[in-house]
């Protein structure tokens, strides 16, 4: 399996600065910068989680997606003077522990995680397929949330086109997408408890 790993400590500091700048622009509403941020972030998350989920390689991509959704939905809790590494690491760790805890049932969990914050030390762009299909979860959302997401994001229509097609106002389409992502974030977590 080809992996692209870049592991130097000075590299991690550079990544912090680069991701921080992109995230900051994303928080100001710049879509392209935000997309680039998420793209790079997902590669670091993948490498980080892969190293810690060595027992369950199938779970890595699911958890990458869950972390991305969580970080998106909770991005207002980031403070710009705080190291981005610490924020990303705390969320990834929280979601990882949540997953491991659901796997071990109600047994006491021996924390398998070290406290090193080297989440930006490596990255992996080699995405395997997610095992849990988010598209399936998407179908459980109410129409007002699901249809805007499907039309705008997955079929590539503009907000205006989707609004006309769905007979909704443009702001209702935007609100639907926004709320849908929040709901998706919650259901992703609950779906662990089913299995």
């Amino acid at each position, binding site marked *: 399996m080809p992996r692209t790993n870049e592991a130097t400590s000075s590299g991690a500091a550079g990544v912090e600065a680069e991701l921080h700048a992109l995230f900051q622009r994303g928080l100001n509403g710049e879509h392209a910068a935000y997309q680039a941020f998420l793209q790079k972030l997902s590669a670091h998350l993948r490498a980080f989680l892969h190293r810690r989920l060595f027992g369950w390689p199938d779970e890595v991509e699911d958890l990458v997606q869950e972390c991305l959704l969580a970080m998106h939905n*909770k991005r207002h809790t980031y403070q710009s003077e705080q190291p981005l590494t610490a924020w990303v690491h705390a969320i990834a760790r929280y979601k990882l522990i949540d997953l491991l805890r659901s796997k071990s049932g109600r047994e006491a969990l021996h924390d398998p995680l070290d406290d090193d914050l080297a989440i930006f030390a490596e990255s992996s762009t080699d995405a395997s397929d997610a095992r849990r299909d*988010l598209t399936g979860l998407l179908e459980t959302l109410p129409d007002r949330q699901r249809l805007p997401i499907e039309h705008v994001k997955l079929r590539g229509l503009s907000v205006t086109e989707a609004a006309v097609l769905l007979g909704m106002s443009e702001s209702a389409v935007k609100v639907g997408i926004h709320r849908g992502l929040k709901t998706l974030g919650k259901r992703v977590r609950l779906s662990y408890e089913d299995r």
Partner: protein
Amino acid sequence: MKTDDLISLLAGDAAAVPRGAASRQIAIAMAVGIPLAILTMLLTMGTRPDLAQAIHLPMFWMKVLFPAGVACAGLATMARLARPGVSARAGQWIIVLAILLLWLSAIATYASAPASQRAAMVWGQSWRSCTVSVLMISVPIFVAAFLVLRRLAPTQLAQAGASAGVLSGAAGAAIYAFHCPETALPFMAIWYVAGIAAAAGIGAALGPRLLRW
């Protein structure tokens, strides 16, 4: 869904996030919870009848300001615990040290008092109702704090719940002081602190259940 599809989905939802959005949510929760707590005190028990004279007594202000200070430390701790990757140790230490200091002063007061007055310093006239009243007044703030924590991102759920409990219990105690007729430091050190500790315990127990995200 491929991760790349998810990313473009998320990027499309990237409306600008106003600076200080999380702090504003916390401020709104307190602006709703605290007046409701004051209203709870006024409607169910009322202020002490001699409030106009009591405000000249240092002990009255001790009973208001000490819990108010603990509530502020609880709020600062909660605000930090609500954000991933931020340490809240300083606030937690301030709360513990403040209560230790109160206990030390209460023990000194108790020890230096004549034996005949000691029982009154501990039990006062209202020990039966004090802790329960503090808890009752704290409920609106407790609920507001939990609701706002659910919109934020606490990663240590028991600690975050406990900090919400300290905040609401201590604020409840400060508000209760406007009703409470007691004048002894040992009374406050036991029964007020019991209210704060009970709220913290309830918060710590509920946090892992109610705050997961």
